[in-house]
Structure formats: C-alpha cells, structure tokens
C-alpha cells in the first residue's frame, strides 16, 4: 500500500511498542488483544451493611431490596461466552441475587439465526410509611376493625412484591423473515393502602345515612389495606418481513389479568366509632354500609391483532403505518356481591396511523402524520344501584366510547448563515359518547354521578423553532409553541360543577431557549431556559384557572485529564397552579424544585479507579388559600410541604490482578420529608379506630458494600 507523505506520522504507540518489547511485549500484546476482543465475564461476591433501622431509612430502602436486613449478601454474576466459529452467544446473568429484588436470566443466541431467553425478575416495594393499628387480618379480604387507644396498635409495614418470569424466542426463517414470540407472567402479592368511609347527613336526591345518635358526628373512616394477589400474563407473537425498501410486521398481543381476590369485606368488633375515634355510632345502616363488600379489580383480557411497518418510495421519501384492532372484555361474575350475571363489558378499539417523511428539495424536510383511534364501548347499559326509595333509579353505567384524531405537519428548512427553521402544526380532536341530558330523562335519573361532559374538543398547536450553529463550538435554538383547545357546548348533568379539566377551553404558550457550548474538546456546557403558561376558561369559573411554569438548567462536563473527569448540573423549576373551588376557596399551588449535583470519576493510580457524586434535591410545595371575595379563609393556611435529600455516592475499584478487583461502594443519604398528609404539628390524622400513619420526617442512613469481583474470558 502506498503511503502518502503527509500520512507518515511517528506514532506514540511505536514508542510504546519499543518499551513493551523489553518486557515480552508480544505476550502482553496478545493479552491486550484478547482482553479487547473477547467478552468479559465476572462474578462478584461481597456484603453490604446499612446503618439504622428500617424506619430510619424507609425512603432510601423502598425499592432496593435492603429493607429487611441491615447486612445483606451482595452477589452478582455475568457469564458471557461467544463461540466465534458459529456465532453462538451464551449468557447467564444474575443481579442482586442476595437481595429482595433479585433478577436472573439465561439466553442463547446463534447470531443471525435463532435466539431464546428465560428471565426472572423481582421488584419489592416497601411502603415508606408505618401504620399503627388495631386492625386484625390486615391485608386479607376480611379485615376486622378493632378500635385501640391512639398509638397503642401494632406497627404494620405494607409491601408489594412482583415476581415476573418470562420466556422469549426468535427465529430467522430466511434472510427476510423473522419470527418473534414472548410470554411473561407476573405475580403481584402484598397489600396497599385503601379504606372505606361514610358521610352521615341527609341531602335531597342522594342516598345518605344519618348518624342519628349524635348530630355533630359526621361519619366514620377506616384505613383498610387492600389485599393484592393477582397475575398479569402477556403473550406476543409477530412475523417481520423485510425487503429492500419495506418492513412489514404482523402480530398478536394478548394481555390477561387474573385477580384471586374478588372483594374485600370488613368486619367491626367492639362497636363502630365516629371520625373523632371516641363517640359510638349506633345507626345500624351506617354499620351495614361500612361492612358491605368493596369491589376489587375484576379479571379482564384484551387481544390485539396488528400490522405495521414502513415503506421507502425512494431515498428521500418514506412512509410508516400501523393498523391494529383490539378486542377487550371484562365479564367477571357478580357472585361475590350476591348478584347474578356480569357486566358483559366489551370494548373494541381500532387504531390506524400513517406517517410520511420527505425531502422534496435538498434543504427542506417535511414530516406528516395522522393517527386515528376509535374506542367503541359495546358494554350493555344497565340501570345499576337501583334504589327502592320510590322516586329515583340510579345508574352510572354509560358508554365510554371515544374517538381521537391527531394530525401533524412539520417543515424544516436549511436557511442561510447556518440557520435552520422549523414550522409545525398539530391538530387533535376527541369525540366522546355523551349520554342523554338529565332533562330528557325526566324522573329516570340515570346519570346522577355524571358532571359536565363535552361531546367534542379540538386543539390546534402551532410551533416555530429556529436553530443555529453559531460557531463550530456553539449551537443554539429557540422555540415557541402556541395552542388553543376549545369544544362543543357542555352537557351538564346532576353533579353540577364537575367540569373535567381535560375538556376545558385552554390556551397554552411555551417558549424555550437552549444552547450547547463546547469551548474546548475537554469542556462542554448546556444551558436551557423554559417558560410556559396555561389559561383555562370554564362555564362556571371553577376548577383550573391558570398554570405557569418556568425552568432553568445548566449542565457541564469537563475532562481534566485522562485520569479525571468532572460533571455537574444545576436545575431550578417552578410551577404555579390556581385551582378554584367555586363554593369556598381559591388555592394557589406553587411547586419549586431545585437539584444540584457534582461528580467525578478518575484513576488514582494505575490499578485504582474511583468515582462519586453528591446530589442535593429540594422540592417545596405551598398551598395558599384565599376566598373568592377576597376575605380571609377560615382557620390557618396549610403548611408547606418540603422534601430534601442530600446523597453522597462513592465507589472505588482496586485491581488486585488482571482477573480480580475489589470494589467498595459507600452511600450516605440525609432525607427530610416535612408533610402534613398523615399528621401536623404533633397532631396525627386518626381514623375512626385510631389507626394512624407515620413516617420518620428526618432520615439519615449510610450503606457500605464491599465485593470481590473475579473476571474471566
């Protein structure tokens, strides 16, 4: 090969080679090449120690599988083998094998021919709060409420555990045809917060109960953990056919939900108490209500058939498409409630999408997309919950059909002076099935629980963006979005004042500036600023009034040397919402979020890698209430809710030899959660049986883990 003069460069690696030569360089080179070209396997074994108790680290521990024990086995494995002659990959991987969120997989893949894989994965969610209760049988379908003195119950920590097993396979039938199939079964067990409650009063037109023995007593509330024991199964099979200029996929996706628990029915022992936790309620109807069954999620299933893919008309014009039909049913029998039959729920959904990208002239890119989704609720409408009070019948079972149409058109043009301009328009409509109005139903009020509905809403958004490569090292962009949502006349039903936010008239404006600056090859900095505003218009002036947001962020990365890299970021965002309860109060909800982080990774010596970062997060929420006429609200303002964490993460890896490392991880976190959800200023929120919920507001924990990692090829 002829080497041009300008390419005859004296390279450093020749020097390195000459030095290596003195140390049996070829042998090292062979090792180096093997290290670079053969997949690495590793097995790590060690132990991790957490400080404090499960309650003092509940925020940190909610998902990481470290909650139950202070000392845990750390066991990870990744064995990867490649048979080069045949292209057969064999992988055996395990992670967190000693923890409550373990996962493992085994797969074999003859590249370009076939593949199969088995996977097992656990996710264990531990509730960060502790319940103190006298409840018996918590987390079962038949809990028994048992009032205790405040704070004298037993501590209860809820958890939800998911165990998922899946198998997947694929086979290239020929170079154009690929068959893929997968099946996943996920079991979910445990309990989560739920409950029942009743308001005692008498309101005309509604069915209410009177706590007749005490006029000031207004009801009863219970915290009853919902028992969870269900399976989610998902099966997908598809055939992909590819040609020179197209991809066509046809497939089936089935998803099935099976719940072992039909309903939860509480019992009450020792009498029914009011919300003060002191006064007995003697009304048998109230007792009957609170001990009646609560419906748990019914079995349901859906089957989808689809074709999708793309087609290239030529090198500059392509189209994408999908057509899918889904048949979903829910026919769980009502026997748990002493009623014959079932809902007979059927929902058929048709989806069609067509997209087009084109470059009609050299500097112009055009994108167009249309998406149509029609959900046809074929569930029979039946008058449920019919009351025998002689005047009114009730039913909230009505069609949930909806048709959504979305369209997009966007053009992007390369302008002079390195400018690139983009203009876009988005259009969205939603058409909903709206039941007949109350007036037309006369005495047969079939829509008591319905509020306002809009048969059709439409939204149009306009976008403009200007990008410029300001220099070889600086790129910037500015974008504006304006959108307007409106709709048909509202149909108002009995639950007046219920005006779904997603149907309100809304005007939205957003602006964004971003810059990416790399003054040197070692330093890069990103800036972004965003500002937005939503204005809502409702027929009665209630609900959402307006919302504002702004954010600022800067990220930086600096390569100090081959052995030291630094990163950092600062972000601040603010969101303000005005929510109007038209009867009483207006609330301004203001959320401020600040996050700051600095990190470094580096090499201290030839065989020691270190790294770490410290991150601070602060999230503050203010709820400022005022009355609509400007007078003072009754009582005090709600306190702020603030969440803060400071987290330090450090790791070090010491290479004992080429085939073994010692890895040490240290995490220290200070967290504070100052909230009033479950108590404020020393006063707990207590349920009628004096059940209370607490979380340690200030938590500080450390975790230290050390592992021996053996590596091989």
């Amino acid at each position, binding site marked *: *090969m002829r080497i*041009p003069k*300008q*390419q005859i460069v*004296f390279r450093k*690696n*020749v020097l390195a080679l000459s030095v290596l030569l003195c140390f049996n360089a070829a042998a090292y*080179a062979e090792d180096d*090449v093997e290290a*670079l*070209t053969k*997949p690495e396997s590793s097995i790590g074994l060690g132990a991790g120690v957490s400080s404090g108790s499960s309650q003092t680290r509940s925020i940190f521990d*909610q998902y990481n599988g470290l909650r139950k024990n202070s000392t845990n086995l750390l066991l990870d494995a990744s064995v990867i083998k*490649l048979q*080069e002659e045949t*292209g057969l990959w064999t992988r055996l991987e395990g992670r967190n094998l000693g923890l409550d*969120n373990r996962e493992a997989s085994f797969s074999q893949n003859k590249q*370009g021919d076939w593949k199969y894989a088995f996977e097992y994965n656990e996710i264990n*969610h531990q509730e960060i709060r502790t319940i103190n209760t006298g409840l018996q049988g918590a987390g079962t379908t038949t809990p028994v409420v048992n009032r205790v003195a405040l704070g004298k119950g037993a501590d209860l920590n809820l958890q939800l555990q*998911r165990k998922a097993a899946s198998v997947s396979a694929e086979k290239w039938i020929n170079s154009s045809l690929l068959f893929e199939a997968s099946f996943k079964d996920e079991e979910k067990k445990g309990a989560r*917060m739920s409950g029942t409650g009743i*308001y005692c009063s008498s309101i005309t037109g509604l069915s209410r109960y009177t706590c007749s023995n005490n006029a000031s007593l207004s*009801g009863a509330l219970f915290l009853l953990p919902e028992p969870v024991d*269900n399976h*989610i199964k998902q099966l997908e099979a598809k055939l*992909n056919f590819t040609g020179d200029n197209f991809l066509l996929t046809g497939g089936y996706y089935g998803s099935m939900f099976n719940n072992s628990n039909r309903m939860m029915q509480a019992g009450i022992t020792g009498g029914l108490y009011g*919300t*003060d936790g002191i006064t007995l309620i003697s009304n048998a109807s109230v007792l*009957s209500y609170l001990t009646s069954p609560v419906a748990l*999620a019914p079995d349901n299933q859906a089957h989808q058939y689809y074709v999708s893919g793309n087609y290239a008309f030529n090198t500059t014009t392509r189209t994408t498409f999908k057509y899918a039909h889904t048949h*979903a049913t829910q026919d*769980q029998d009502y026997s748990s409630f002493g009623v014959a039959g079932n809902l007979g*729920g059927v*929902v058929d959904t048709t989806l069609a999408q067509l997209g*087009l990208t084109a470059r009609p002239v050299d500097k112009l890119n055009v994108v167009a997309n249309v*998406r149509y989704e029609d959900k046809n609720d074929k569930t029979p409408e039946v008058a449920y*919950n019919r009351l025998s009070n002689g005047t009114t019948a*009730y*039913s909230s079972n009505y069609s*949930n059909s909806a048709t959504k149409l979305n369209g997009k058109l966007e053009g992007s043009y390369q302008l002079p002076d390195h400018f690139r301009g983009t203009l876009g328009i988005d259009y969205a409509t939603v058409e909903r099935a709206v039941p007949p109005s109350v007036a037309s139903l006369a005495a047969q009020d079939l829509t008591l*629980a319905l509020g306002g509905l809009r048969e059709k809403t439409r939204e149009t958004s306009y976008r403009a963006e200007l990008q410029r490569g300001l220099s070889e090292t600086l790129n910037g962009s500015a974008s504006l979005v304006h959108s307007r949502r409106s709709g048909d006349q509202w149909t108002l039903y009995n639950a*007046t*004042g219920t*005006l*779904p936010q997603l149907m309100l008239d809304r005007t939205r404006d957003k602006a964004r500036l971003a810059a990416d600056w790399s003054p040197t090859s070692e330093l890069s900095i990103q800036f972004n600023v965003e500002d937005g505003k939503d204005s809502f218009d409702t027929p009665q002036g209630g609900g959402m009034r307006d919302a504002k947001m702004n954010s600022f962020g800067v990220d930086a990365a600096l390569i100090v040397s081959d052995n030291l890299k630094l990163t950092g970021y600062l*972000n601040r965002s603010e969101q303000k*919402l005005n929510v109007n309860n*038209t*009867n009483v109060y207006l*609330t301004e909800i203001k959320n401020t979020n600040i996050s700051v982080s600095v990190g470094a990774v580096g090499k201290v010596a030839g065989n020691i890698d270190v790294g770490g970062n410290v991150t601070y*997060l602060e999230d503050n929420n203010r*709820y400022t209430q005022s009355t609509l006429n400007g007078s003072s609200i*009754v*009582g005090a303002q709600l306190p702020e809710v603030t969440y803060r964490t400071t987290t330090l993460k450090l790791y070090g890896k010491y290479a004992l030899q080429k085939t073994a490392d010692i890895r040490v991880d240290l995490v220290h976190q200070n967290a504070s959660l100052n909230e009033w*959800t*479950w108590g*404020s200023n020393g*006063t*707990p*929120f207590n349920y009628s049986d004096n059940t209370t919920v607490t979380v340690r507001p200030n938590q500080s924990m450390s975790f230290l883990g050390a592992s021996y990692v053996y590596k091989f090829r």
Partner: protein
Amino acid sequence: MKFIRQVMMLFAFFCGLCGLSTSQAVEEAGTTAKVANRDTVCTKCHDESEARPILSLYQTKHGVRADSRAPNCQSCHGESDKHLHGDPNVKGRASPDVIFGSKKGTYQPSEPQQQNAACYACHQKDAKRSHWEGSTHQNRNVSCTSCHDIHNGGHDKVRERQTQPDVCFTCHKEQRAQINKPSHHPISEGKMSCSDCHNPHGSVGPKLMKRDNVNDTCYTCHMEKRGPFVHNHQPVDDDCTNCHNPHGTVAENMLKMRAPFLCNSCHTTPHGPGQPALANGSSGAVSPMAGSAITQGRACANCHTQIHGSNNPSTAPANSQFFFR
C-alpha cells in the same frame, strides 16, 4: 506463534526507528491473526494501543464474523479512500467518510442523517425501529451514537437498565430530578428503565410510548386499572397522566397534586362549603365532607376509595357510582 509475534514487534520497532509510518509497522505486530483477518485495512493502525480501543467492537455482536450480516469497519465508516490513501487538499490525515458522535474530536462528526443511514442500513429490519422515520428523536437530529456507544466492549450504557437513565437525562433533565422524589418508579434503583415505557426509536403512541397509547403502556404492569367497570371514572379511562406523573412526585402514588386540589381541578364544587384544613384544629370538627378528612390521610380517597373504577353492582347500600366501594 508467540515467537513470530515477538519478531514482528521487533520489526515494528525498527521500522519505527527508520521513520516509517506505524500504519505499516504495526500491521501484524499489534493485532492477532484473528483480528488481522477481519478488518486489517483499519486495525493495522487502529490497534490495541489506542486510548479508546476500537478492537473492543469484537466483544459485541457487530464483531461476530460467523454472522454474515455483521459489518466490517468500512460498512459503517464508509470506504474512506481519502483517509486511507491521503487527500492532497487536507493537511494531515483526511477524515473517514462517516464520523459518528455529536461532538468534534479529531474530526468533525458527520451529519446525523448520514450517521443514522449507516446504522439503518442493517437495523431497518428490526420491527422496534419501524417508526424511526418521523419520530421526535429523528426530527430533532438525534443520531444513533448520541445514545449508543458501539465500541465500548459490549458495555453500551443505554442498553443496560441500571445506566440507561443517565443517557436519557443528558437531554431530559426534568425527569432526572423527578425520579429522586419519594414517590417514584424504581428507576434510580435500577429495576426499571426509560425504555420499559418508551420506545426511543419511534412508536405510534404519544411521547414515544412503547404501546399504542399511554394507558395501554401503563396497563402492561397495572392491568387491574383497565376495566371496563360498572362505574368508570372518565379521566382514568382517558389518560393515566391526567392525574399521575409517572416519573415521580412528592405526593403519594405519583399524583401530580395532592388531593383535594387535584380532584378540585375537575370537581369544582364538591361537598358544599368544605375547606381543606388539618386535624390540629384549624377547621374544628373532623368531618368526612370537609376539613381534615378531605385533606389528610388519603384525602378524597378516604371515602372515594375505588377511584380508578368500581365493579360493584350492588343495589344496597347504593352510591357505588361515586367509587365508594
């Protein structure tokens, strides 16, 4: 074999001393025969001595020669004649035809479309990428190597669940803060990743949802919310993100706002003259219709407990349509 390599290394050393280009000198010395047989045109220079060795590609599927579809260097980087043979108009060595990445290194990166075309030439056969064209990422000039690290010995951060979010947060900074709030999906714990819900290569759904819409994506794990129920809650059926922020919140259950304020954004006049207040006395008696019982604990859900929908058809007691039970 070892001896031959040692001889070749020695040859390389002397060639270097003689001022010859190492592109010739280390042709055999720096690479094993196995590697040399594959991409010798490139690996005779780009050998194991590189600061960021490209030979680690052979630890990945791209480097498996038993798979006839696997590329060689020039499949992706182009024939690169000027890089190999010189360009009299360029000082120093000319750039290969296609340079991947988004930041300038030795050479200026190629246009994203050109980079992606190299990848897409093979990966267009993957159904997961069928809707790349016209997707948000494609429109925003995101190139494959903006996220993927092809040469990193199989340790492509974006393909590993534990490290993938760091790659996504390079652009999606708002979500970086949200996943560290107390109510979140187990993303920071490495048990979920962005691609469990999103398909960054394009999809039919909004926000690059993995399934055809937001709810169908959520149902893959939360299928108990799918129904249909005897009593449906319309915004639940419309879009889970009407009420939830799946990336994380301070309010429990990843609710966008605490009840009753979240509920008030649609239900503008519930419960008559009740005002949110706390149990420490600001509103007087605890009442399920006002004060602390609509503010604290599970707030509105203290009574409206089946807020995602109730399948209770019972005739007595009534009022299941209000999601009481």
